[in-house]
C-alpha cells in the first residue's frame, strides 16, 4: 500500500502519460517558436546567437504556461478536488505534489530539449550549457507561480488567457535572471553562479509560498 503522497504523484504521472500531450506538446511548441524567430529576424548569425538565450527563455516560459490552466480544472470538474480536501494530506501538499508532477511531465522535457534547440539559434557550447542550467533552476518557479494563476481561474471556462495575464508579470524576475544566467555562461562581468543562485532562490521561495496561496484559492472555490 502506498502512502497518500506517493499515490498522488503516481496517479498524476500515470494520468499525464495516458492522456499524453503535456510534455510532447510543450517541446513541439518550443520547436515551432525557435524555428519561426530566425525567419522574422533574418539570417544574422551574430544577432541570433546574442538573443538566442532570451528567445529560448521566452519560448520555455510560454510553453510552460501552455496547458497549465488545466492543472486543477480537470480535478475540479470531476469532483476529485472536493475529495482531496477530505484526506489527511493538507491541500498545500497536494498542490505541491501536483506542481512537481506537472514540472516532471512538462518542464523537464522542455529543459532537456532547449539546449538542442539552442543549436538552431547559433549558440556556442557554453551558451547551450548556460541555457540548460538556467532552465533547470528556473522552470520549477514558473510551474509554482502558474499554479496560483491556475487556482484563481479554475472555475472559468476559458481561464487560460486570464491565467496568462495574471501569471506572466509574476514570471518576469525568473525571466530576467534566467536570461542573465544563460548570458553569464558565455562571458561577461557577472559570474554564472550569481544569477543562478537568485534563480534557485526564486524557485525555492515560490515552492514555499505558492502552494499556500493556491490551496487557499482552491478552498474558496465552492463558495
Amino acid at each position, binding site marked *: 500500500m502506498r502512502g*497518500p503522497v506517493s499515490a498522488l504523484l503516481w496517479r498524476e504521472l500515470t*494520468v499525464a502519460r495516458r*492522456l499524453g500531450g503535456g510534455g510532447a506538446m510543450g517541446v513541439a511548441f518550443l520547436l515551432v517558436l525557435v524555428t519561426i524567430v530566425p525567419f522574422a529576424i533574418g539570417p544574422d548569425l551574430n544577432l541570433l546567437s546574442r538573443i538566442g538565450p532570451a528567445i529560448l527563455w521566452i519560448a520555455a516560459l510560454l510553453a510552460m504556461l501552455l496547458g497549465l490552466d488545466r492543472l486543477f480544472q480537470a480535478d475540479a470538474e*470531476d469532483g476529485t478536488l*472536493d475529495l482531496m*480536501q*477530505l484526506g489527511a494530506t493538507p491541500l498545500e501538499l497536494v498542490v505541491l505534489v501536483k506542481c512537481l508532477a506537472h514540472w516532471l511531465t512538462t518542464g523537464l522535457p522542455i529543459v532537456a530539449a532547449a539546449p538542442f534547440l539552442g543549436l538552431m539559434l547559433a549558440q556556442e557550447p557554453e551558451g547551450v550549457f548556460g541555457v540548460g542550467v538556467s532552465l533547470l533552476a528556473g522552470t520549477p518557479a514558473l510551474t509554482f507561480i502558474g499554479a496560483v494563476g491556475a487556482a484563481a481561474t479554475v472555475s472559468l471556462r476559458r481561464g487560460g488567457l486570464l491565467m496568462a495575464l495574471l501569471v506572466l508579470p509574476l514570471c518576469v524576475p525568473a525571466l530576467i535572471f534566467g536570461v542573465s544566467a544563460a548570458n553569464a555562461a558565455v562571458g561577461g562581468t557577472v559570474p554564472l553562479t550569481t544569477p543562478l543562485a537568485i534563480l534557485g532562490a526564486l524557485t525555492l521561495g515560490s515552492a514555499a509560498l505558492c502552494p499556500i496561496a493556491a490551496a487557499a484559492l482552491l478552498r474558496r472555490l*465552492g463558495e
Partner: protein
Amino acid sequence: MPLVAENLHVRRGGRAIVENVSFRLEKGEALVVSGPNGAGKSTLLRALAGLLPLARGRFSLDGDADEVQSALHYIGHADGMKPALTAQENLAFWGAFLSTGAPGLDPRAALKAVGLGHVAEFPVAYLSAGQKRRVALARLLVARRPVWLLDEPTTALDVAAQANFADLMRAFRADGGMIVAATHAPLGLDDARTLRLEGARREMAA
C-alpha cells in the same frame, strides 16, 4: 460516539440556503434529508463535508469539530474518478489517499462488493454512467471511515444495484457506521430518521 449538528446555517452568495438545521445520530443510525429541488440538500451535505463554510452552528463527531472531516466519506454529484485510469487504479489511489488508520477493502474486493469485479481493468472512461457510479460507491469501502455523506447516491443505478447498495449500507450500519443521505428516491434505509428541508420551513421528525 454521536454525530451532532447544532443550529447549522449555510449562506451562499449572501443568501441563507440552509437555516437552523439540527440533528443527532448515534452509532448505526441513518438520516435521510429530503425536500424539493433547490431546498438546500446538496448545500447542507457539502457544508457537513467541510467544503462550504458554516455561517453559524457546529458539526461534530464525538464532540470534536476539527477531526470530523477526516472521519467522513462524501459521495457528491461528480464521481471523482479519472477517466484515463482503470477502476482498480482509481480505487487504489483513493484507498491510499483517504485511509486513516484502519485499512479498508482491497480495490478488487471493493469492486466485487458492488458487482463490478469484471471491469476492474477497464479505464473508467469506457464504463456506463451507472457503472461509474458504482465505482464511486466502492470508494466507500476502500477506506474505512465511520460517517458516509451521500448526495443522491443511487442516481443512474439499476434496481439490482440499488438493492446491492442498500445491503452495503445495512452492513455498514450494523458495523456502527452512520449515514446522512440526501435523496428523492427511497434508499432502502430501514428505520432512518428524516429531515425535511422546505425552503424556509424545516422541521425534524424522529
